Structures are given as structure tokens and as C-alpha cells.
């Protein structure tokens, strides 16, 4: 019976509901508003804790990110799906992760937080969502034109264990909080970085999510891609379940405040709310999955997905050091320019790694 449940549509709905409720509850337990879970924001906080950027209000080693990788690792080991693999254009994936993070930080959220912001009543998220879908749609055009990053190869198990080991290292830094002369490890004393749910509850919830997502292949970007590309709604039902569950939970916990002005960790410049997520959506689609999915893949041995995650963390460092990330006041000084340059880079990657160029060469 369990086997049937694991492959049924009920299971993806269950997963979506679990993530939606968890996000609302983690917010109640201390995480920043409409940010019970946000893969981009939380990786950005980790980058800050390590000193890759010095934005003092967003520095914390988020146990949720660690839990996602551990949960997926455990599911992959239990169900014998752990498979060390790499070699599918890792450096391109690093660049895509870097650019995806910049886009996400111009909007202020990953696809998961886009849904959670909507579920919290933040109308600005509608523009982010529209941008995300537009970015995915452009990515699909490339996929239809033969875009691919080449196949990966099976490799030594150690390669697949690198990301879980990095996460273990981060977890030790979080537990023991060493203080070095440089100031690292940095932990915010105010702002979103100082707001956090209890470590072990956050870790445990995230591990359950990682476990469920590894089994269901939950992915917000592939959900939209599958609807457009092959008219399949399996993953999409999971995403809708997440949205509705978070909405209902927020209403019950009195965390729902509708409007555009004064939304938490958000700005009202709709052009760049939209533009930032076009860039993120395109980069995620070219890399094959949303940032959550990249974490789950890196937990089951996909070293290329791990490189994408590292690209996101480094990208977060750059986004804050080079005034690309937005704040509640609006886009950073270099935010709009970086989105445009990022889009150009994505288009070059899309064109040069598809059949569009090959055909020209042959002709």
C-alpha cells in the first residue's frame, strides 16, 4: 500500500501541503515574514554568515538548507537512488546559479518564496510570478530548439558526498559558532538574519521536506515547464497544494496581510520584480530545476546540481557586495543593469548550447 502511495498523485499533494504548512509554522516560530522557507534568501544568509558579503542584517547559517540536503540524502540512500554523477557542463551551471541568485535577489525571493509571499497577501509577488513564468517559457523555447548541457557520467561515490559533507561543515559552524579575528562566523544581531526558528525544529522539518521532495521530484520550475511543454499537471498539483496550504495556514495563524505597500522584505518596483524573476526563471530552466530541486539533487549525488548551488551562494555574495540585491527601498544601484547583463548571458548560453548554432554551422 505504501508503495502505491509513494507514486500516486496524493503523495505530491501531501508534499505540497506539508511544505506550505511548514513554511507558515516556521515563520510563526521565528523565521522572517513570508520567508518561512526561501532557498535563495537562506543561501544568501549562509553566504553572509561565511563573510562572502557584509550586509549585516542577512547573516545566518540557515539549518533549513542543511536539512534539505540531508533529507534528500537519507531518502536516496534508503531507496537506493544515491548515484554519484557529474560532468554535465559544471561551469555553465555555476554561472546559471550565480545569475539565478542575482535575479532572485532583485525580486527578493526564490520561486518558493514567490508562492509564500502570495500566500501572505503580498501583491508584488504577482509580478515576480509573471516574470518567473515568462523566464521558464523562454527557457522552454531553447529546450525545444535542442538546448542541453550534455550528459553526466557516473563517478566515484565521494564526488556525490561532497555537498552533504559541506552541509555537515556548515552545521558544525552553526552549532559551535566559532568567533575568528576576522569576525567570522557572522550572525546578524538585527534584521531578517536575526530572526530564526529553533535550530533543531527547522532542521527536522527541512529534513522531512527533503525526504518527501526526493521521492516526489518536487520542483516548482519543472511544474510550470511540464504544464507548458507536455501538458502534464503532476508536479503542478504539488505547487498549487503548497500555495493553498500556506494561504490557509497564514489565515489561521493571522499572518495574512494583503496589499502592495509595506510588505515584509519586498519592494514595489514592479518592473524589476518582474525582470528579476525573468532572469531567475530562465536560469533555473536552463539548469533543469528550481533552487530547491537543485539542493535535493545535490543530496542524492548530483555533483552538477551541487555546483549550481555553490554558484548561487557565490552569486549572493556578489549581489550584496556590488549593490545588485534589492532592499525594501527598491532595486540596488547596479540591480537593473545586472539583470539585463544576466539575461544576455543566459541567451548566449541558450543559443550556443542548442541546435540553433549547429544548424548555422552546417549551413
Amino acid at each position, binding site marked *: 500500500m505504501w508503495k502505491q502511495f509513494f507514486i500516486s498523485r496524493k503523495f505530491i499533494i501531501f508534499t505540497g501541503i506539508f511544505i506550505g504548512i511548514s513554511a507558515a509554522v516556521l515563520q510563526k516560530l521565528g523565521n522572517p515574514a513570508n520567508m518561512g522557507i526561501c532557498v535563495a534568501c537562506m543561501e544568501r544568509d549562509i553566504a553572509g554568515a561565511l563573510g562572502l558579503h557584509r550586509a549585516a542584517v542577512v547573516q545566518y547559517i540557515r539549518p533549513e538548507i542543511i536539512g534539505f540536503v540531508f533529507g534528500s540524502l537519507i531518502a536516496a540512500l534508503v531507496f537506493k537512488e544515491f548515484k554519484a554523477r557529474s560532468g554535465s557542463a559544471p561551469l555553465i551551471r555555476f554561472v546559471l546559479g550565480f545569475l539565478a541568485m542575482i535575479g532572485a535577489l532583485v525580486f527578493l525571493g526564490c520561486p518558493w518564496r514567490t508562492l509564500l509571499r502570495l500566500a501572505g497577501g503580498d501583491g508584488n509577488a504577482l509580478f515576480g510570478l509573471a516574470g518567473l513564468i515568462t523566464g521558464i517559457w523562454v527557457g522552454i523555447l531553447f529546450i525545444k530548439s535542442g538546448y542541453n548541457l550534455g550528459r553526466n557520467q557516473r563517478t566515484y561515490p565521494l564526488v556525490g558526498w561532497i555537498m552533504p559533507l559541506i552541509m555537515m561543515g556548515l552545521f558544525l559552524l552553526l552549532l559551535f559558532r566559532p568567533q575568528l579575528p576576522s569576525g567570522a562566523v557572522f550572525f546578524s544581531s538585527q534584521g531578517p538574519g536575526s530572526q530564526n526558528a529553533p535550530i533543531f525544529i527547522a532542521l527536522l522539518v527541512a529534513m522531512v521536506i527533503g525526504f518527501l521532495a526526493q*521521492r516526489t521530484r518536487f520542483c516548482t520550475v519543472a511544474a510550470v515547464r511540464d504544464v507548458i511543454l*507536455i501538458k502534464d499537471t503532476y508536479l503542478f498539483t504539488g505547487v498549487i497544494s503548497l500555495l493553498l496550504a500556506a494561504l490557509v495556514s497564514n489565515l489561521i495563524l493571522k499572518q495574512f496581510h494583503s496589499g502592495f505597500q509595506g510588505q515584509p522584505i519586498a519592494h514595489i518596483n514592479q518592473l524589476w520584480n518582474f525582470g528579476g524573476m525573468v532572469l531567475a526563471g530562465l536560469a533555473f530552466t536552463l539548469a*533543469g530545476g528550481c533552487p530547491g530541486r537543485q539542493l535535493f539533487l545535490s543530496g542524492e549525488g548530483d555533483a552538477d546540481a551541487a555546483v549550481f548551488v555553490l554558484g548561487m551562494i557565490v552569486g549572493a555574495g556578489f549581489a550584496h557586495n556590488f549593490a545588485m540585491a534589492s532592499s525594501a527601498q527598491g532595486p540596488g544601484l547596479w540591480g537593473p543593469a545586472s539583470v539585463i547583463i544576466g539575461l544576455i548571458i543566459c541567451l548566449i548560453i541558450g543559443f550556443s548550447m542548442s541546435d540553433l548554432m549547429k544548424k548555422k554551422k552546417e549551413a
Partner: protein
Amino acid sequence: MKDNYSVVIFYSTSAAIRTESLAKKQGLAIKLIPVPRHLSSDCGICLQFNNEDKPKIEKILQDGKVEYENIYKI
């Protein structure tokens, strides 16, 4: 098609789409579907076809030089 089909698992989404268009040209009854959950794959989309078309599908994959992971009977 429900009880009597197989799927080709690919490394990339575009390989799946390319094979679909090649098979469509030959008039085969095929369909792109998400990879069944009990199989694991790096690409989320696979090609479903009738078991009796297996030789034709294999020939399309070979002639089209499409790299694929495996073929599974469902």
C-alpha cells in the same frame, strides 16, 4: 496504451523532445510523460510507447544518434 507500454529514459529534456518529433514523423503512437516515480532519472520527462513498437523506437534512437539512459517496460 495503458497496460502495454514502455518508456525511454533520457539524459536531457531536449533529447526526449527530439525523439518525440522523430517518432511522430513515422506515425507512431507515442507521448511525452513525466518519468514514472518508481524509476529514477536525471531528466524529468520520458517517452512512452507501445511495446510492439520497440524495434522501431530503437531504430529511431540509433539513426538519430540520440543518447538515452534506458528503456523500461511498465
